[in-house]
């Protein structure tokens, strides 16, 4: 018997603002734009929306992020569902999960889920936008030891994780590069992508080190912008203007890190638990997935995530991606819009937005040949939080 939540909601609207080095708007301004676009895309009036879930990006930690005030900026009264959620990069997929459950439970009808961020300042680097943590007074005691050792920011955490995988399994720099090259090939066909010039493996290797083993081109593109989706009941979705994208599976996994021998959060992630739950709900497995939209804050994240979803065995992710199968024409089209590496970094909304576009069949030049099941993953922290969605143009 099918899982009772399989197909219990559909994504019926998508709104994407311009992305990148766009100045003069706050995160809340971007959020308003994305919500307006998503509602119009769904063919709804603002008064039809009775649920709003909000996820602030890094600006949420800096005091300038979008928050509950968005409701009033949008002039949305009478909401039956409202929250400001944060499980880092896993939040976008989680918002759709909670929206699906709320719709199924009859708590709301049309739920808007929005992510917005505006960390970039004119003339400032991504490091300046995202970093500076090390310049503030850090934590004391044991938690202060990392900053005391010059370990600052997400780049260092993912470099340490990537190195561990290389040492355990022989994963190579060429294999990280294969991810960057494949995603760039997709990005050349995405008008919204920030980096659209083709990329060679040689150019990848020539890009400067950030934290070795991560080059600049192993790292995502910090962006200003916002993305929103509308989640609706499946019986209504069928008669709404855009091709409905049904939620067929969903799961989460949060492994924790006890920081002691025996744990391996760097190389065995929450994607395992999330995959188990999501595939069971969808009644599917990795072999059934036609398109992958995988959270790719770094190239390494893609490799370890594909392993943990069972597309290949643990430790074989490097070899798995090295033959170009993730790119255009490959056996497993992955991050078909260019991902966070070459298109735009909107946390979990990057894979979700492209997943909706692909499931609708609106990818244009970059449309994957098959799209019956689309996997969307979200990852946050230092591979600490994970959530997944399995999307489909078919309800059953």
């Amino acid at each position, binding site marked *: 018997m099918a899982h009772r939540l399989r197909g219990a909601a559909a994504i019926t609207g998508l709104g994407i603002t311009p992305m990148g080095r766009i100045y003069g708007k706050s995160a809340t301004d971007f959020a308003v734009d994305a919500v307006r676009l998503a509602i119009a895309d769904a063919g709804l009036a603002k008064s039809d929306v009775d649920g709003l879930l909000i996820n602030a990006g890094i600006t949420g930690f800096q005091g300038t992020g979008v928050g509950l005030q968005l409701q009033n900026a949008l002039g949305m009264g009478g909401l039956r569902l409202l929250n400001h959620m944060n499980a880092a990069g896993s939040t976008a997929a989680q918002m759709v999960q909670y929206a699906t459950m709320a719709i199924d439970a009859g708590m709301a009808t049309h739920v808007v889920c929005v992510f917005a961020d505006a960390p970039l300042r004119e003339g400032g680097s991504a*490091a300046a936008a995202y*970093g500076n943590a*090390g*310049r503030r*007074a*850090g*934590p*004391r*005691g*044991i*938690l*202060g*030891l*990392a*900053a*005391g*050792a*010059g*370990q*600052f*920011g997400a*780049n*260092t955490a993912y*470099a*340490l*994780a*990537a*190195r*561990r995988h290389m*040492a*355990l399994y022989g994963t190579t720099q060429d294999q990280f590069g294969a991810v960057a090259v494949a995603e760039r090939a997709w990005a050349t066909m995405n008008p919204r992508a920030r980096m659209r010039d083709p990329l060679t493996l040689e150019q990848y290797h020539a890009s*400067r*080190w*950030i*934290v*070795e*083993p*991560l080059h600049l081109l192993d790292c995502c593109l910090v962006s200003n912008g916002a993305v929103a989706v509308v989640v609706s009941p499946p019986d209504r979705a069928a008669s709404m203007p855009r091709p409905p994208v049904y939620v067929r599976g969903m799961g989460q996994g949060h492994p924790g890190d*006890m*920081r*002691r*021998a*025996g744990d391996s959060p*760097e190389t065995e992630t929450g994607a395992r638990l999330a995959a188990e739950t999501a595939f069971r709900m969808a009644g599917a497995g990795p072999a059934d997935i036609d398109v992958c939209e995988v959270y790719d804050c770094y190239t390494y994240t893609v490799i370890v995530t594909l392993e943990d979803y069972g597309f290949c065995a643990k430790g074989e992710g490097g070899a798995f991606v090295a033959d170009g199968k993730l790119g255009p024409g490959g056996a497993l089209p992955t991050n078909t819009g260019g991902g966070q590496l070459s298109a735009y970094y909107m946390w979990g909304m990057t894979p979700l937005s492209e997943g909706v576009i692909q499931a609708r069949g609106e990818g244009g030049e970059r449309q994957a040949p098959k799209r019956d099941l689309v996997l969307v993953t979200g990852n946050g922290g230092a591979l600490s939080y994970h959530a997944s969605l399995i999307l489909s143009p078919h309800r059953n």
Partner: protein
Amino acid sequence: MADADSPPRKPVSEPDELTEPFFAAGAEGRLLLAACDSCGELRLPSSPVCPSCLGEGFSWREASGRGTVYTFAVMHQRYHPAWEPDLPYNIAVVELDEGPRMPANVVGVDNGELAVGMAVEVVWQREGDAPVPRFRPAADG
């Protein structure tokens, strides 16, 4: 002309309520671990409660100071001005022989010679007056 501003200083971890003895022992070159009074689990305490059994209360034990490099990376990014002269510098996570893992730099080795699994031993150094735990290749490693 000399810069009137004082040079930037590296951030160092200061003792909190839990870790006064940890840093005091560090100033004497000794590495302490917390042993849970309920279950005996050894940890570097970032909370008064044992994450294994949720027991309260722990006793300090002297650790061997020996471990292996669990993972490492080499920082090239200009992130903190006080660290700029050190670029590129290594960062590592050391798994102590007793089990807990701690972030630290490895000294006395070229970045290119670092390897996962390398045997290391603690060496407490100072930044200003503050004791900072670092590791060096083990003498008999």
